[in-house]
């Protein structure tokens, strides 16, 4: 447990720094230490509730998170997560390594996929999004002004979130980068609203996935407890140093970690007996 605790602190720290989240980093490491992949995924899923809720608390309080958008999108992520976790509980473990590597590959997209404009402008809101009251405003610290925004394409956003939930539930991760892309590219949220709202939703998605792992008896307390404590400590520390590290270094770190994890998961999947 002590080893898991120490690794989790690092995973939480790196997860917060790179935006990958603790879960994506923890599962491959645990597997390397010989933990069965399904146990690792189940424990990660619970752990994510702690890191997500911990940071969500302050963003919600600062009123950056759009809670209405979160409530709407959660309907889709939880269904995806329940289906995804159920698949994981039943499929051959070997397949999970390949799915995991495949999902990590998509996270490269996040590097280039970011919108160039600081705040989305001239968004034409469709009727459904308007009916859902999907708009808002927050005070942007960096721009030193109040930013107002409107969202659109709520129906497509919901569909995208179901896919995000499926991946999250299956692999025991938050799928934060994926959710953020949907928020920004489809729903047209400003990036700060997007990342904080994604974080807020992750807690519920993780609970939906965790409920399936609970029912399947895959949730081991000896593994989940030190992970939850460790990643929470790591994430808090990571959040504090993030602002002091140049973006360039964060990007290299991200690239290096994702590459190592992909190679490792593929290797494990191929050599598994």
């Amino acid at each position, binding site marked *: *447990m*002590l*080893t*898991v*605790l120490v690794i989790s602190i690092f995973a939480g720290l790196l997860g917060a720094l790179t935006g990958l989240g603790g879960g994506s980093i923890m599962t491959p490491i645990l597997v390397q230490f010989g933990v*069965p992949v399904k*146990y690792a995924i189940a424990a990660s899923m*619970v752990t994510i*509730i*702690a890191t997500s*809720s*911990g940071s*969500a*608390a*302050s963003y*919600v*309080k600062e*009123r950056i*998170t759009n*809670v*209405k958008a979160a*409530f*709407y999108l*959660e*309907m889709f992520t*939880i*269904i995806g997560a*329940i289906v995804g976790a159920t698949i994981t509980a039943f499929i051959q473990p070997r397949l999970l390594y390949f799915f995991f590597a495949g999902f990590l590959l998509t996270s490269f997209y996040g590097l280039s996929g970011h919108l160039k404009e600081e705040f989305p402008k001239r968004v034409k809101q469709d009727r459904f999004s308007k*009916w*859902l*009251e999907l708009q808002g405003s927050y005070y942007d610290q960096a721009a030193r002004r109040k930013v107002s925004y409107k969202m659109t394409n709520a129906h497509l956003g919901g569909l995208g979130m179901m896919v995000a939930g499926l991946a999250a539930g299956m692999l025991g991760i938050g799928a934060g980068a994926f959710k953020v892309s949907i928020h920004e590219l489809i729903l047209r949220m400003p990036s700060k609203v997007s990342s904080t709202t994604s974080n807020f939703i992750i*807690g*519920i998605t*993780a*609970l*939906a996935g*965790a*409920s*399936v792992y*609970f*029912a399947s*008896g*895959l*949730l*081991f*307390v*000896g*593994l*989940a*407890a*030190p992970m*939850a*404590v460790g990643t*929470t400590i790591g994430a808090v520390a990571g959040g504090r140093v993030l602002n002091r590290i140049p973006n360039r270094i964060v990007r290299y770190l991200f690239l290096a970690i994702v590459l190592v994890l992909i190679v490792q998961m593929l290797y494990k999947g191929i050599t598994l007996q």
Partner: protein
Amino acid sequence: MKKLLSEENLELTISYILIIGVIASVAMESLGILSYYYTNGDFGIVFQPQYALRGSDFFSYSATMLQNLILGSWTPFQILALGIIVLMITPYMRVLASVIYFGLVRNPKYLVITAFVLIILTASLLVH
């Protein structure tokens, strides 16, 4: 009353639910890990069915664990399990809070949306 029921206060309530839940759970898990070491003399992780959270559905499982705690039969496993239960119940509580809020302010759209999430989560936690 209207001022009390502002969206800002819902956000504040949610924020408190989340932070209290996480702190309580991390504290219990830390205590659980220490008492595990105290009882067993090592930090080994055992992957045997009795160390998995399992039993009846989530709610009755939680009730049993809580009952044991009140009756004073503490084992390190129970403290660890309860820490995980508190963690899982935290986001559940914040959905419950939103359902109550949208019911009170009579916003049928979001009452239905949040109630849908609550029902799915409840159903999923009841399965075993």
